[in-house]
């Protein structure tokens, strides 16, 4: 078995600075689109800010003068004209917003597609070691949860923040152009608001993480108990289960109440601070206007008019709500960037390397040839391991001085307890893992010099845990050789006695396999997986507990078909059930990474050594 390291929940760490820049580099791929988005965004913001001044202008410049005219003969002409030009400006705003939003949708989805494709490509290039050392759920969550968080960051959080920041700057400049004096009042309030936002932000982020942890604990418990539901029934554990659940549920509820209350009171509080600022500006502005204090602006000293004060007040409202929004959003933005970081980590993982030069070509049914670019030699199928040492983790040797000689057409059996190193040997032959020292040769060629693709093409492995893919049974058998005809697939199924049960299914070979391959027993799935390997028609076969779930009687039947598949091929076979391997040409008995006995069934029984103990059931093979 492979050395599986359990991934425990990794602690939330600080996001690297590079992550954000790297994300931006994906955005910069779309330069042209980005320019249009920026133009649209600016148009949209400027019109939006401008429209908040519209009423002021309408009242000051049009309605008030009109009031001075003769009541029965008011000239609405200039006002109508102003309204039309205003409507024109607004239409530009609407169009800009439309352009900005639609392009943004394309941009964000384009970026995601780029990242996604990189991730898929990566998945196919990662070495087996990556999958063995990382928990499947953890890898999966990078492809699902982390990508989804990234989607939210790219398509929602970033545009909103960019929009917010630009609006913020626009209003900031507008305010300074109106009055620097009044802005000092605003500045004072901003400090208070930012301090409050930071205080509450830190706290709510902390309790948000606590909530995540406690919901994780609660869900973990539920998951374990639902998956073990049958055990719960059998041992009458129901009531105790509910009691234990209640404790966890209560913990969760407490954490949520704490976190949510805090984050929910932030908004009304900030809103009130904004309203108070509004009033303060009225106080300060009024006093300044009355006392005739010099009003400093970016455009030089100017008198503080009533129009200026009201406009300034309008800006104050937008400004304060923006501060609240931005400061509460930033911590979450940072938090979600950690998802992006995990994605980039995956993309940066070292891929599998292939420096092989020898090609292996198929020239006919069960006939292959070597090709090193100059010479073409027919393949024989001799596999030799010489003095191979291997360890998954440094200093923990799994295989010690292994020597195996498998000649063409020979059936080599590996026997021993779990952890003895049987599967590891097969993982080395097809280079799922690289050996530490020693050599593995294939027809005298070091496997390192063979193109990995070709090497694997010539070695079909049938594993104990069958993995079928969503699709029909026919498609799953054809997975071994994509060009196989229906007849070839059916012939393979017949060979391994899978045909009879497949024909019994309502849709026969067109039965769709989905999810847990519901309906098929483990044994039936194993038969399909053997058929899949048979279709591939490789010169060398590795059967790793391939028939472990097939009952002894059916196995006997399957054996005949298996024999005909194995004929003429080099076969490595690992089996728990020793009856399966009795007729092997050579049986290697393994213990703790060493081959301790080798020989035929008869000679090993005669020897009365470890094999004898295993065969007679004196020692547990596990």
């Amino acid at each position, binding site marked *: 078995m492979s050395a599986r390291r359990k991934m425990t929940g990794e602690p939330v760490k600080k996001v690297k600075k590079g992550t954000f820049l790297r994300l931006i580099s994906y955005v910069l791929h779309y330069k042209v689109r980005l320019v249009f988005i920026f133009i649209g965004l600016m148009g949209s913001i400027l019109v939006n800010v401008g429209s908040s001044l519209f009423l002021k202008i309408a009242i000051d410049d049009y309605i008030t003068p009109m009031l001075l005219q003769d009541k029965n003969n008011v000239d609405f002409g200039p006002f109508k004209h102003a309204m039309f030009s205003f409507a024109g400006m*607004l239409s530009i705003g609407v169009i800009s917003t439309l352009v900005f939003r639609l392009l943004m949708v394309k941009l964000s989805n384009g970026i995601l597609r780029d990242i996604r494709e990189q991730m898929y490509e990566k998945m196919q290039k990662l070495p087996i070691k990556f999958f063995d050392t990382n928990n499947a759920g953890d890898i999966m969550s990078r492809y699902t949860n982390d990508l989804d968080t990234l989607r939210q960051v790219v398509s929602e959080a970033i545009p909103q923040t960019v929009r917010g920041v630009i609006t913020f700057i626009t209003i900031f400049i507008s305010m300074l152009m109106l009055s620097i004096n009044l802005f000092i009042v605003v500045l004072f309030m901003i400090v208070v608001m930012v301090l409050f936002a930071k205080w509450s932000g830190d706290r709510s982020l902390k309790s948000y993480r606590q909530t995540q942890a406690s919901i994780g604990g609660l869900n973990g418990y539920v998951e374990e108990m639902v998956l073990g539901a049958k055990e719960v029934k059998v*041992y009458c554990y129901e009531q105790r289960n509910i009691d234990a659940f209640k404790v966890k549920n209560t913990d969760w509820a407490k954490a949520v109440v704490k976190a949510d209350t805090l984050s929910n009171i932030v908004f009304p509080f900030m809103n009130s601070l904004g309203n108070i600022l509004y009033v303060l500006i009225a106080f300060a502005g009024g006093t300044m206007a009355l006392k005739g204090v010099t009003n400093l602006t970016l455009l030089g000293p100017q008198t503080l008019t009533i129009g200026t004060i009201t406009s300034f007040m309008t800006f104050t409202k937008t400004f304060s709500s923006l501060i609240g929004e931005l400061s509460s959003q930033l911590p979450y933005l940072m938090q979600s960037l950690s998802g992006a970081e995990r994605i980039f980590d995956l993309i940066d993982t070292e891929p599998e390397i292939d420096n092989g030069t020898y090609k292996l070509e198929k020239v006919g049914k069960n006939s292959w040839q070597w090709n090193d670019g100059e010479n073409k030699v027919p393949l024989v199928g001799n596999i030799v391991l010489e003095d191979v040492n291997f360890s998954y983790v440094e200093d923990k040797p799994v295989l010690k001085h292994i020597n195996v000689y498998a000649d063409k057409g020979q059936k080599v059996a590996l026997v021993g307890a779990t952890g003895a190193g049987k599967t590891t040997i097969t993982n080395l032959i097809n280079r799922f893992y690289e050996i530490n020292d020693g050599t593995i040769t294939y027809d005298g060629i070091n496997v390192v010099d063979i193109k990995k693709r070709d090497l694997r093409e010539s070695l079909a492995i049938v594993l104990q845990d069958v993995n079928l893919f969503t699709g029909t049974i026919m498609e799953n058998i054809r997975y071994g050789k994509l060009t196989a005809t229906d007849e070839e697939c059916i012939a393979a199924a017949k060979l391994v006695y899978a045909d009879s049960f497949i024909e019994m299914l309502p849709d026969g070979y067109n039965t769709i396999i989905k999810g847990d391959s519901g309906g098929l027993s483990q044994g039936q799935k194993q038969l399909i997986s053997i058929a899949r390997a048979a279709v591939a028609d490789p010169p060398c076969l590795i059967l790793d507990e391939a028939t472990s779930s097939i009952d002894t009687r059916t196995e006997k039947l399957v054996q005949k078909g298996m024999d005909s598949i194995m004929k003429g091929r080099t076969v490595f076979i690992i089996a728990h059930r020793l009856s399966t391997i009795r007729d092997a040409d050579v049986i290697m008995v393994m213990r703790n990474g060493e081959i301790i006995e080798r020989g035929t069934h008869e000679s090993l029984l005669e020897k009365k050594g470890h094999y004898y103990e295993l065969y007679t059931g004196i020692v547990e093979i596990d």
Partner: protein
Amino acid sequence: MFSVFKNSIAKVKKESILSMIFILFETAFEIVVPFMMAKLIDLGIENSNMQNVYRFGFIIIGLVIGQALSGIFCAVFAVKAGTGFAYDLRERLFSRLQTFAFANIDKFSTGSLVTRSTTDIANVQRAFQMVIRGAIRSISMCFFSLYFAYRVNFEIARCLTFLVPVIIISFVIVSRLAMPIFEKMFGAFDALNNIMSENIHGIRVVKTFNREEYEFDKMKKSADDIYNYSVKAESYVAIWDPFMNITVYTILIIISWLGAKAIIASGNNPDLGLTTGKLMSLITYGLQMLMSLMFMSMIYVMLIISSASIKRVQEVLVEETLIRNPENPIYSVPNGEIEFKNVNFKYHENSKHRILKDINVKINSGETIGIIGGTGSGKSSIVNLIPRLYDATQGAVYVGGHNVKEYDLNTLRKSVGIVLQKNILFTGTIASNLRFGNENASIEDMKEACDIASALEFINEKPEGFDSKVEQGGTNFSGGQKQRLSIARTILKKPKIIIFDDSTSAVDTKTDAKIRNGLKNRLPDTTKIIISQRIISIKECDKIMVLDNGRIIAFDNHDNLLKNCELYREINEVQNS
């Protein structure tokens, strides 16, 4: 639709009502504030009257404090209500799961039950919180704004009212158009996730057959689907934004135009009609109304999205257990005698295929019975009927002389121990797993049980003994160790009948024999049923049941079966040749 949630909602009635009341206060304050701000501008700033500025300024500050306080109270109660609701719902769902019979669990599949009790329930909670806070807030906001608008100017307010259905209708149209595309998008995500998961688990197969590019093409195709659907679906959402802009701007223009006319007519005299200050507050009301409508539409979308989750949670809550306690149950099982009378069994009511056919058999108390047969012959099904993990479709099963349906379920299951084929250990320690079967078991009891199950040896080898950690699913134990712990766990229940469903398959023959001997000598009065694929494990049984295709084709001891039963002989030959 929400009737099953009634009880959970009732639990948080007080909090919900309080939060709604505070929302009403909060929105009322929020509406009055702009009203006062208009006055502050009209009567204070415009007239350069500092006294009025201060007067209205302090009124506003008072209102703002009121608004903040009601906002905070509302948040406190709304969170309590939302969490309390979810707490109750989770508990209800979990408790409901505990009542499920095996058949109920099979119907949903454990994977789906996990999703329903984690992800789906979180969605339901979110929907509930949205409704109690957002819906009430936006509806009351909409009404308040309109009400104040009418108070200010009837004609303009009427124009605003006309906009409400326009916005609602256009929103419904947009969401109707967008929803199917969103569904397709979610479908594409599911398909892709399925491919990813199959690839992660089946990576060895992919690499063995060199199908990297083939799989990549599959993913790429799926990712292209996602891209296309996402762009389409999100474009609908994106159009919504400029559409809202248009409505906002229309409101601005309509109000300004009509407002200007009204102001001219009144001569900007508050007693005669509209003034410039009031015009500004009208605009605020118009925008607030719009905001609330927008918010309502968001809630609508949320509800649609979570309706699938709501449905899935509901299905579990209304699912009735297929096996329930009888009225006036029997609370003790007299002995370990078992009898099947004319039993037929199917997993599904409607399926044509009978798993067990015409089973008639009697097992005396204290006997040891072996069961053998091919895959799918009905070995597990027959024993599952004894502790009522499933109920017979026809006929009846008797334990200790009574129909199993007459017993209290706990009593029956405590008396009938079964070691399942797939053993699951739970996170905790060896001791906590052993106590799973009997919470009051003492250390001595555990030692005794583990000794019988031949588990004591390896437990003693561990430095922490019975306190050794067990990881989820028991992954840090070998198959044989897990089986032996499960056997010990069942023995600890001190049952009258003990069933081993192929539960020594990973144990070596010597240990297997030792366990059988231990059971024979130390639990002599217990009825033992052993299912095995190995003849060697059952040949010494008092009687052996040979099952083929759901029928008992022979029931006799080893020697007689060798003589009379062809199938048994065949199995024996295969295993001994």
